[in-house]
């Protein structure tokens, strides 16, 4: 029987995002150069929520886009066919401070694919990584700059982020099979 453990409830999730937004604002004094890029699907929703908070902190619009990484993954054919989402990049990436947003940081392979995908669009001034959950087990030298919550996990456990944009209830749960 699969057992599930709550990691973040709705209030804790909102608080984590607010804190990440403040940390992004604190780190980046030249706020006009900051753009957010979400990795579908979860990271895309989170990027849009972070932008809403950042806009109230900074008092100006913050560009946000979607970066599809499925065409840059290195595990095509080893798992289920990935769902390809369109990349939406309504700004020039060159010289920008890019905050890459994903829901869960695990092996780091999605982040590597995202860095590769970004190469096709230009050369950002720097790239920072914001994730809601860091669950460890990295397979590449990648670390997050902003973390909602660090969660120790076993490799065979699953971390499920349920967001209301996808019909969920804004919680994060760990599932043991």
């Amino acid at each position, binding site marked *: 029987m699969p057992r599930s453990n709550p990691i973040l409830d709705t209030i804790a999730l909102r608080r984590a995002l607010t804190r990440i937004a403040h940390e992004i604002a604190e780190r980046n004094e030249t706020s006009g150069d900051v753009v957010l890029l979400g990795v579908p699907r979860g990271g895309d929703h989170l990027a849009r929520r972070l932008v809403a908070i950042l806009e109230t902190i900074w008092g100006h619009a913050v560009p946000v886009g979607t970066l*599809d990484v*499925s065409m840059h993954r290195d595990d*095509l*054919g080893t798992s289920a066919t990935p769902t390809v989402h*369109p990349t939406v990049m309504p700004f020039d990436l060159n010289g920008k401070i890019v905050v890459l947003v994903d829901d869960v940081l695990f092996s780091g392979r999605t982040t590597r694919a995202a860095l590769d995908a970004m*190469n*096709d*669009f230009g050369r950002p001034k720097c790239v920072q990584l914001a994730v809601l959950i860091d669950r460890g087990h990295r397979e590449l030298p990648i670390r997050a700059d902003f973390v909602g919550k660090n969660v120790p996990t076993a490799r065979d456990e699953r971390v499920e982020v349920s967001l209301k944009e996808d019909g969920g209830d804004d919680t994060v749960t760990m599932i043991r099979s």
Partner: protein
Amino acid sequence: MSWTRRHLLDIESLSAGEIVTVLDTARAFKAVGERVIKKVPALRGKTVVNLFIEPSTRTRISFELAAQRLSADVINFTAEASSLKKGETLKDTARNLEALNADIIIIRHSATGAPHFLSRFLNASVINAGDGAHEHPTQALLDLFTIREKKGKVAGLKVTILGDILYSRVARSNIWALTKLGAQVTLCGPATLVPRIFEKMGCRVTYNVDEAIADADIINLLRIQHERQRQSMFPSIGEYSTLFGLTRARMARTKPDVLIMHPGPINRGVEIDSEVADCARSVILAQVTNGLAVRMATLFLVSGGKGPQEVTA
């Protein structure tokens, strides 16, 4: 959204959901073609073979470019310059290509079912790029992609396919795909080339061209497939053009938002007037652009399925 197939052999066996998956995936790949860097590494290290036993330029080039934009290596193989001329069978040719570790074999052949035949013994993925008068699945998928892009939907639209239906694999694949997605299909052309038997595929057959085009949302024109006709199916090209060609005069009696489609190559002055081919309602070149995106999506999706080892294990 789901795709578990290793091959794309025909439209007939696809579900509506699978067709929509290809179209949705193609949308993301179309955006890749609009970037400064038009290449993604999705199929890096894979080998794609264009096994074209029947002549083709646009489909072969489209598949070749699609594979290159996915970073695959491509080998082009044509019947004229091959051992098939020296008496090798198709099966042996395909086995030899697989012995070179080809991952995807794209085949065009004059015989119906040639791709299905290959798929039964090859570990590589097989994509049908046209088998005889049977099917041309990627052409139908790019036609639907274009319709969806221009009209926002497929269901409920009236689509008239006009011309040589009998010898057309494009027509068959289109009829399957359009009816699966809920469009109403009308077929029209000379009675010798549009037999009533096509009504069994769920479409309407008429020989009155003015009626067929009057309320159509889409008019898909097909070329006369002279190379497949064993006997003369109509008196003359001139008569065909007069009776069934989409002339300027006929165009004036269509819906103002009708889309004119053609899989190419077009024969100006036969099935379509030059002015009509170049008019604002013509999406013939958009079809070519979209064909590239659809073929990238197809190559991507068949590569994502389980590898041959997992299948045989």
